[in-house]
């Protein structure tokens, strides 16, 4: 056994002619290089195999189908096929009044429904020219959005660990996410699809004692994140598995219009909360984490994961400031009785959701039903990168790459 390990050559053919790769010593990179070398030497080239990956596959995070062209174990080409969760959001929105579209936006990114509600509502408010909202409403919206960002990122890092083969962190992430969902259930009555942020206000005021409970949760949550990092983030095996795969250079990310943690993981410091502050984000102090390339090249799958971990910490920072500053007030006073923007007026608003920029373009025709609603989805844009970052890598790394992009099919297909 030791013979093979200390030999320079990292692969050999056994007595039956099958390829055996010594995976033992160090990183995934060595394995990848060994397989590449073996594939070339053995003359496997020319035998392409096309496999369908999904749509019913636990690692695709929903009903995504990938058509993968394989050369041996190396990925030559990946084509994502979408549309398995298409619900016709944009056309449907042309037939129902402005305020009734809010429950439909819940179902776009169902893991961050508050951010979706907020993105749509901000676009309608821009269309109506409704800029002066009660202070309390703004603070409640920021608190909800940041809590939902934490919940969404917990899901992302948990399933990413699951893709890499770690089950315990997934369960721990779900345990903490559950507590955030409990807070939201107390606040809005629902656990996932809140329909909470309405045009000009919110559906309900904060219940008595909610702020204290939220602070209690943050006190509980911060040590839990330290434990989580010990278990998964700083785990050497996990780092070796992820820090060298799915490398996305910054220029490619910008060319593909990637946003959110996928863009920031490549080292580009771009966050709408800081660069185009909407609502009251200019009042809070927080950093924009970017990929640092601590264990490998910048823009790897681990960097995208690391950006999410750091963003959870920044969200906790924002939440602490917001929970301290929240004023008293009436949350219903600015809700308009009739939403009827002038005919021909149009508005586009983009905001920072956990998975990137969510943008809504709305055109009015003078009635209470919009003429056109267009949704710019971040996941839809980010999934187009899957071919760019998985080409020339192994099939096993493809799973890691999908997990690191963190898509929600509800938003990809709309």
């Amino acid at each position, binding site marked *: 056994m030791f013979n093979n*390990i*200390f030999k320079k050559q990292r692969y050999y053919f056994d007595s039956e002619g099958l390829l055996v790769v010594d995976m*033992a*010593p*160090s990183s995934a990179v060595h394995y990848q290089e060994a397989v590449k070398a073996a594939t070339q030497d053995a003359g496997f080239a020319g035998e392409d195999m096309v496999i369908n990956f999904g749509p019913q596959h636990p690692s695709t995070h929903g009903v995504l189908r990938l058509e993968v062209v394989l050369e041996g174990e190396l990925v030559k080409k990946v084509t994502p096929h979408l549309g398995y969760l298409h619900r016709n959001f944009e056309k449907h929105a042309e037939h*129902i009044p402005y*305020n*009734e*579209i*809010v*429950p*439909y936006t819940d179902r776009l990114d169902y893991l961050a429904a508050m951010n979706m509600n907020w993105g749509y509502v901000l676009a309608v408010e821009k269309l109506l020219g409704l800029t002066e909202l009660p202070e309390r409403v703004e603070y409640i919206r920021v608190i909800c959005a940041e809590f939902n960002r934490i919940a969404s990122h917990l899901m992302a890092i948990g399933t990413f660990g699951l893709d890499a083969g770690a089950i*315990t962190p997934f369960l721990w992430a779900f*345990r903490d996410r*559950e507590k955030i969902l*409990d807070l939201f*259930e*107390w606040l*809005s*009555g*629902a656990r996932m*699809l809140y*329909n909470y942020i309405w045009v000009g206000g919110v*559906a*309900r005021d904060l*219940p008595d004692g909610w702020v204290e409970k939220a602070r209690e949760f943050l006190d509980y949550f911060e040590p839990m994140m330290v*434990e989580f990092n*010990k*278990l998964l983030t*700083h*785990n*050497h*095996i996990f780092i070796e598995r992820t820090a060298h795969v799915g490398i996305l250079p910054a220029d490619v990310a910008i060319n593909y219009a990637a946003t959110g943690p996928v863009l920031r993981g490549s080292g580009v410091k771009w966050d709408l909360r800081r660069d185009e502050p909407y609502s009251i984000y200019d009042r809070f102090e927080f950093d924009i984490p970017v990929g640092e390339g601590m264990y490998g090249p910048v823009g790897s799958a681990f960097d995208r994961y690391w950006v999410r971990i750091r963003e959870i910490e920044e969200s906790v920072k924002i939440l602490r400031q917001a929970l301290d500053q929240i004023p008293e007030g009436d949350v219903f006073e600015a809700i308009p009785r009739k939403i009827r923007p002038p005919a021909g007026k149009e508005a586009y608003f983009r905001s920072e959701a956990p998975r990137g920029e969510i943008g809504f373009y709305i055109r009015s025709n003078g009635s209470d039903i919009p003429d056109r609603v267009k949704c710019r989805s971040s996941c839809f844009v980010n999934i187009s990168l899957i071919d760019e970052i998985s080409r020339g890598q192994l099939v096993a790394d493809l799973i890691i790459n999908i997990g690191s992009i963190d898509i929600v099919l509800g938003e990809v297909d709309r």
Partner: protein
Amino acid sequence: MRTYFRNVYRGLITILIGMRQTWRHLFTPSVTLQYPHEKWDLPVGTRQQLFVNIDDCIGCYKCARICPVDCIYIDTVKAKPDEDLGKASTGNPIRQHLVRFDIDMFKCCYCNFCTTVCPTDCIYMTDKYETSVYDRSNGIYHFSKYAPDYAAKLIAEEKAAEEAKAAARAAAKEKAMAAKKAKVAE
């Protein structure tokens, strides 16, 4: 060779760190419940199964109109002038027979819009969530308190009254036209 043993050492240590965390968590209280036997307490205002207190409903159609998925079906018959149907508990007078008030809970999206617009707060969301049924038709909940034959009778009466009214209107119109014609002929 040095790298090899360093990697082995690192792999061992990193597993031990993880195992220490896991070991510590073995002695913390469990966060899960044995679901069908134990249940979580739901907070006030939770959004589950819809319910209509039909005695308070005034048949204003507001809930059916705001429903984004159109899952509320209401049919009403106007009360006759000499009929008194009483008042809702909030004081709003009831002027219609509610011959049909059905909610299709399979279509419901639990958005809570119907309960916010209700003027008498007679439609609300309860905390019942175990509502699976064996047949799709069992998911449609009927809230009207009118017996089907009585409801049919009311609908038929209204239809007859409307038809009579329409006939009377047509006759009046014809008479007016005839009078006009006669005037023109003169």
